[in-house]
């Protein structure tokens, strides 16, 4: 192998559209995903923004409950299936998994490309469902509303989710097999970065839970098309069964959304604290525990749906149990920062924001996991605030943290650090301004999914909508300066943060084959050295 051929960066290896659209290079596929994901994120964001616009006035500024129903359904469907579930795995996960393992690509590169095409088809079918008139059922598609009554484009939405599901399964399958089979020599399981453990746990859920949703939606579609089906109480079917099957996927899917975020934060906190990750094995096994216990908590979505008290108590206890590994992680990140030499660069600002917002979201999750409290709080804005603290405050922060952290590796360019910090702080402020009032609103009894509401809630809703403006600015900032940096940013060195991990040992951007020579791993991850002064303090 001549070295001139060996060191062509993946970005320089072909400039035609064809070289991108038919690539099997995991790094290029990650970029394709990044573009698509960004588009869907802003599409879902516009829907959210219109909802907040509507809720400025207690009468509903959009003037139509139908429109509002379609907006929140669109927001939920787009954000869950074409942003949150895939976001970190398909972009950062695709880019980094082989690099972190010391491999040249994923196990099945053509399958990886296929999953992108499935994803694109799914995304556009979902957009078709929206443009053709929308869906008014919410992202949860409860029967019999979806099967018998809804006039929206439910089947189109199902087709979109069905296809997106197979894209997820393909990605998850690829990651699991890659992590098992393509680790570099010396890369034992306990030498893997935590990010890969998180992706592994995520992938297990994707592979085992997604097909259940796929079949459930097929059954509803069958019922809708033929007018007869398994969830129809008129012939002895059971609508509750739909909820069981739906949440059997959709609760683990919540962990699909957050686990990769945990992985990102576990990489960033040691790098910017200049300290070894505290309690590596605890974090690793906490991820696995979350993936396993996460399969056993779905019933907590159905406390008021008519399930038995016994099942509700069991699901409540199990839901408390799943909080334990999440808390372990939070303690470990803080333990890592303790007496660390902390650098407040943008990725770390996002990571610290993540820890606070996720903890808030997680602890309020315990409120709604408690049976008595849930009877009061379910179907209110408290639940909306709770899961947005986890999904947006947590997951989207982690996504941005990771995007900033690995941006120099992915693009070979540095982004402007001051703008990065300004963006992180704007997002943190805007987020809290948007969603903290919703905790209060929910506690006071404002129900979710209503387009008009009693006048007493107007002030808090106005505050929330004002926050949404700040949050929107916060999200537009990275879109601006990250795009700018592609052309005008300074060239990045191989390891601008001084971080550990195999991905930093190869040039930025990496060559097509990742490593000129397959690396041999001898060290555990996160071997950071603290500056002398700090150690002797």
């Amino acid at each position, binding site marked *: 192998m001549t070295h001139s051929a060996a060191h062509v960066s993946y970005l320089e290896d072909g400039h035609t559209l064809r070289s991108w659209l038919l690539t099997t290079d995991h790094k290029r596929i990650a970029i394709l995903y990044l573009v698509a994901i960004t588009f869907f994120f802003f599409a879902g964001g516009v829907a959210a923004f219109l909802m907040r616009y509507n809720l400025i006035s207690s009468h509903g500024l959009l003037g139509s409950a139908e429109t509002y129903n379609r907006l929140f359904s669109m927001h939920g469907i787009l954000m869950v299936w074409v942003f949150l579930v895939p976001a970190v795995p398909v972009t950062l996960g695709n880019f980094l998994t*082989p690099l972190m393992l010391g*491999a*040249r*690509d*994923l*196990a*099945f*590169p053509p399958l990886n490309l296929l999953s992108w095409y499935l994803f694109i088809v799914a995304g556009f079918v979902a957009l078709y469902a929206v443009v053709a008139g929308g869906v008014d059922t919410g992202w949860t598609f409860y029967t019999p509303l979806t099967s018998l009554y809804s006039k929206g484009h439910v089947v189109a939405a199902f087709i979109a989710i069905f296809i997106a599901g197979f894209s997820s*399964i393909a990605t998850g*399958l690829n990651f*699991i*097999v890659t992590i*098992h*089979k*393509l680790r570099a020599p010396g890369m034992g399981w306990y030498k893997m970065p935590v990010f890969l453990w998180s992706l592994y746990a995520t992938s297990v859920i994707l*592979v*085992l*839970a*997604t*097909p*259940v949703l*796929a*079949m*459930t939606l*097929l*059954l509803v579609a*069958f*019922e809708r098309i*033929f*007018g*007869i*089906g*398994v969830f129809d109480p*008129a*012939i*002895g*079917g*059971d609508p509750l*069964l739909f909820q069981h*099957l739906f949440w059997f996927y959709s609760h683990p899917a919540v962990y699909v959304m957050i686990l990769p975020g945990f992985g990102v934060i576990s990489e960033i906190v040691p790098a910017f604290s200049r300290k070894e990750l505290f309690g590596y094995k605890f974090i690793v096994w906490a991820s696995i525990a979350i993936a396993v216990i996460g399969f056993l908590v779905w019933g907590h979505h159905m406390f008021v749906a008519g399930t038995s008290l016994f099942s509700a108590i069991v699901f409540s206890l199990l839901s408390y149990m799943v909080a334990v590994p999440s808390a372990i992680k939070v303690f470990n990140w803080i333990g890592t920062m303790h007496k660390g030499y902390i650098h407040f660069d943008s990725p770390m600002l996002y990571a610290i924001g993540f820890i606070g917002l996720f903890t808030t979201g997680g602890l309020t999750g315990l409120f709604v996991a408690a049976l008595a409290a849930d009877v009061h709080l379910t179907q209110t804005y408290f639940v909306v605030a709770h899961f947005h603290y986890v999904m947006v405050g947590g997951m989207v922060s982690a996504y941005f943290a990771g995007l900033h952290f690995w941006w120099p590796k992915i693009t070979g360019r540095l982004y402007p650090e001051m703008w990065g910090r300004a963006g992180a702080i704007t997002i943190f402020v805007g987020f809290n301004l948007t969603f903290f009032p919703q905790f209060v609103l929910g506690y006071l009894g404002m129900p979710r999914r209503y387009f008009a509401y009693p006048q007493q809630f107007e002030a808090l809703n106005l505050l929330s909508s004002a926050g949404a403006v700040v949050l929107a600015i916060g999200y537009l900032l990275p879109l601006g300066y990250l795009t700018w940096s592609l052309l005008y940013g300074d060239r990045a060195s191989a390891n601008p943060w001084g971080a550990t991990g195999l991905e930093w040992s190869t040039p930025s951007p990496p060559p097509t*084959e990742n490593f000129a020579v397959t690396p041999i791993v001898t060290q555990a991850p996160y071997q950071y050295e603290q500056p002398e002064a700090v150690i002797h303090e």
Partner: protein
Amino acid sequence: MSDAAAHEFQFSSAAHQRETAISGIWLFLATEALFFGPIFLAWIYARLADPSAFDAGGRQTELAIGVTNTALLIASSFAYGVGLACIEFGSRRGMVLWLLIAWALGAAFIGLKFGVEWRMDLEKGLFPGATFSVHGPSRSGAQLFFAFYFFSTALHGLHLLVGLALLAWIIAKARQFTSERHSPVRAVGLYWSFIDIIWLILFPLIYLIGRAS
């Protein structure tokens, strides 16, 4: 082409690539198992709610065709297994012969199931809806039974059609396989047997439970 050179650049050897492909197929089958899982769960759950109506529905099915079809599928998997053994021992001709038998048995299942049995079912008015021919107190539950029946057999049939296409592909590519290099034959075989296993769960749900009580 030598064995050592014929692998993609992320693998260290052709053997490494082969065992990775087989792991991928196993994981895919785990996905498939959970894909069919909700049908079985919902079916059993719905039967518990109204067992006598499900039994009334089940007794309308064509037991003789069901038994014949089960035998066809098991024989087909057996034939595939012999074909796989043939290529492992280096007999490409043997593999092609047994895979053709496996293909024919699978195709016979499809013909019998959809060409004969479904037509009889439809003629007897067993498709759920206004023209459904079971009357009396069991009418609703029996319709639910047949909703499951048509849905699951259609889906199983679809998987079988994909399997037939894969078998045809293996037969067409037979020249490429040797006693060392035949992981696609193994992979398709795993899928082919998996479809049988799905049928072995559907078979009692459709034909046996209703007649047993």
